[in-house]
């Protein structure tokens, strides 16, 4: 592992990001009545893509937007330009990650097929709402404007083919609602909201969600760890694993995700309870067991489209063992073209021989051969035995290498540490399939009770 490359500058990164930042600041005050400094921000974005096929389209869009006359197509063009820039940042960073890990990347040969395109009307409604947002700007949002997302989300949620769009809009709108009125905001998550806006705009376009070419996976799956993502009304758990094909070809890194919409009062252990019944892999990962796959559908991005009928639980296996023996020989998956964004980078790595440093503000970092890697302990889910304290006392860490706000950060998935003079491994996802831990059992019971109350209420009131 080339730890010296964590902090080594990446060529062109600052230039690309400064064009992105210039555009992002435009969205803070909105495009209804643009000021001269906003015009400059729009020009910066257009200039950054001047050498690409988007050049003419984006230049025109920037002009119109600077004049306060941007139509829907113009805003789509601006979103496309920002997506392209973030895609280039993603590519530069993933090359850097490959240099750090020394692993090879899989190749992507098959073009995606156009998916069937459901919900044209509701997607058009979503796009219209997003255009209104861009005109108002983050400082111009109010409850009436934000409430416009609710009917769109309600119409999308029942259709699983629109789950991506629905989940994104729902999470984004909830944040905006909690931040209303925009005029009194002390601070704005400038890059984050521009990311979410851009992403949502793109996903309303025909062809944005592609059906990926599928093959099947038959062989042994060795879980490395579980990553949880959540907002008020959705949760996703993603298991990162090494897949060893039965035909003896080289091992590859894969992921398997399971997600569900949820009421905001279902939290903690309740998240595992919602997801557990749909994917047997969660229990296997929690108990550190392999799974035997037989004809499991898998995308070129390395996403297993999990079906319990295609999997069977196998032998106990310690993820640290997998990481030490097989991880370095596995290939990393590639990301679908439209999904390239630095926030998507989540690369399994094993770190050992570091010293833990406690920075001001309580943030941990690992020092490796004089180089420092920040550790994002805030990402550790609360419904599990792994804690920031365990990370601080650890000697080895299995985690996801990510990049955010200009630096690489490590998200711990598991650590090796010493408890009562004995070396133990502590996994963030250990409670995914259930637990006998005293604190865990209590959390499970509380979550079961919450869902029971809501189901009882739903039974009485939705019927009435």
């Amino acid at each position, binding site marked *: 592992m080339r730890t010296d490359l964590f902090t080594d500058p990446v060529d062109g990164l600052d230039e690309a990001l400064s064009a992105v930042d210039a555009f992002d600041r435009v969205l803070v005050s909105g495009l209804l009545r643009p000021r001269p400094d906003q015009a400059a921000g729009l020009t910066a974005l257009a200039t950054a893509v001047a050498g690409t096929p988007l050049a003419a389209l984006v230049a025109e869009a920037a002009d119109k937007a600077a004049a306060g006359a941007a139509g829907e197509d113009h805003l789509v063009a601006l979103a496309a330009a920002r997506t392209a820039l973030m895609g280039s940042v993603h590519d530069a960073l993933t090359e850097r990650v490959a240099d750090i890990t020394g692993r090879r990347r899989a190749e992507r040969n098959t073009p995606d097929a156009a998916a069937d395109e459901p919900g044209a009307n509701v997607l058009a409604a979503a796009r219209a709402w997003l255009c209104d947002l861009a005109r108002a700007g983050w400082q111009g949002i109010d409850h009436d404007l934000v409430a416009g997302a609710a009917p769109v989300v309600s119409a999308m949620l029942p259709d699983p083919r629109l789950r*991506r769009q629905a*989940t994104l809009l729902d999470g984004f709108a909830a944040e905006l609602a909690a931040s209303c009125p925009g005029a009194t905001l002390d*601070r704005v998550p400038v890059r984050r909201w521009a990311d979410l806006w851009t992403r949502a705009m793109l996903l309303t376009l025909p062809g944005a969600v592609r059906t990926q070419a599928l093959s099947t996976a038959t062989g042994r799956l060795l879980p490395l760890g579980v990553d949880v993502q959540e907002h008020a009304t959705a949760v996703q758990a993603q298991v990162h694993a090494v897949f060893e094909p039965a035909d003896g070809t080289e091992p590859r890194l894969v992921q398997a995700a399971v997600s569900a919409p949820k009421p*905001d009062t279902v939290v903690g252990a309740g998240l595992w309870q919602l997801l557990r019944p749909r994917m047997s892999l969660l229990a296997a990962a929690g108990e550190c067991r392999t799974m035997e796959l037989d004809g499991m559908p898998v995308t070129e991005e390395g996403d297993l489209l999990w079906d319990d009928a295609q999997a069977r639980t196998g032998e106990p296996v310690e993820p640290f063992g997998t990481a030490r023996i097989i991880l370095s020989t596995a290939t990393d998956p590639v990301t679908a073209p439209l999904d390239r964004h630095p926030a998507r980078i989540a690369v399994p790595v094993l770190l050992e021989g570091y010293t833990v440093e406690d920075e001001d503000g309580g943030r941990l970092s690992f020092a490796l051969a004089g180089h420092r890697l920040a550790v994002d302990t805030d990402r*550790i889910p609360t419904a599990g035995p792994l804690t920031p304290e365990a990370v601080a006392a650890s000697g080895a860490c299995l985690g996801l290498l990510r990049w955010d706000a*200009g630096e690489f950060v490590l998200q711990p998935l598991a650590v090796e540490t010493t408890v009562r003079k004995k070396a133990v491994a502590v996994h963030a996802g250990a409670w995914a399939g259930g637990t006998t831990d005293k604190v865990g059992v209590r959390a499970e019971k509380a979550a079961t009770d919450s869902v029971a109350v809501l189901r009882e209420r739903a039974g009485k009131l*939705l019927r*009435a």
Partner: protein
Amino acid sequence: MPVWELSSTARVVPPARPRKLAKVPFVELADGRLQGVVSSGSDAGRVYVSSLATGTYAFACSTNNNRPCGGARGGFCNHIRALVGEAVLQYGAERVARYLKADTGDTSDTVPDAHMLVALMTATRPEQGDTSAAAPVFSRFLRHLAYLELEPTTAPLPEMQWFPPTRTVA
């Protein structure tokens, strides 16, 4: 720009704190009100829709069939008190106070709680509001319940990468 503003995964809204839902199955800070649904103590098929307006603390409480709550004449009924209590559990007293624009004064040595918030609001002798919000609040509650009926899926949602968990509570 400060680092928080340059982060794609900045945490903006802390997740709800876990709480028992039997008495107050639904509470939210929305539409300029603290609003929610409170179970009737006597009739399992009946719920009260209660709300408090931001700034004026104008209060309203009625059943889901729009019958006025007998307790909410001239002052806060027990349903509204329960609503404030559970909102404080779910969101933390500071966020509730901020949303309602309740001035808890200098909180450096006193931590605001539900009791203090209720005392503060009743001291201003708030007026009784109309119950026109009951229907939309109740339909938001039903929409909230409907999330439990939606099936989990194993098709990946790449956009969830923008929503990391946080150990910070409200």
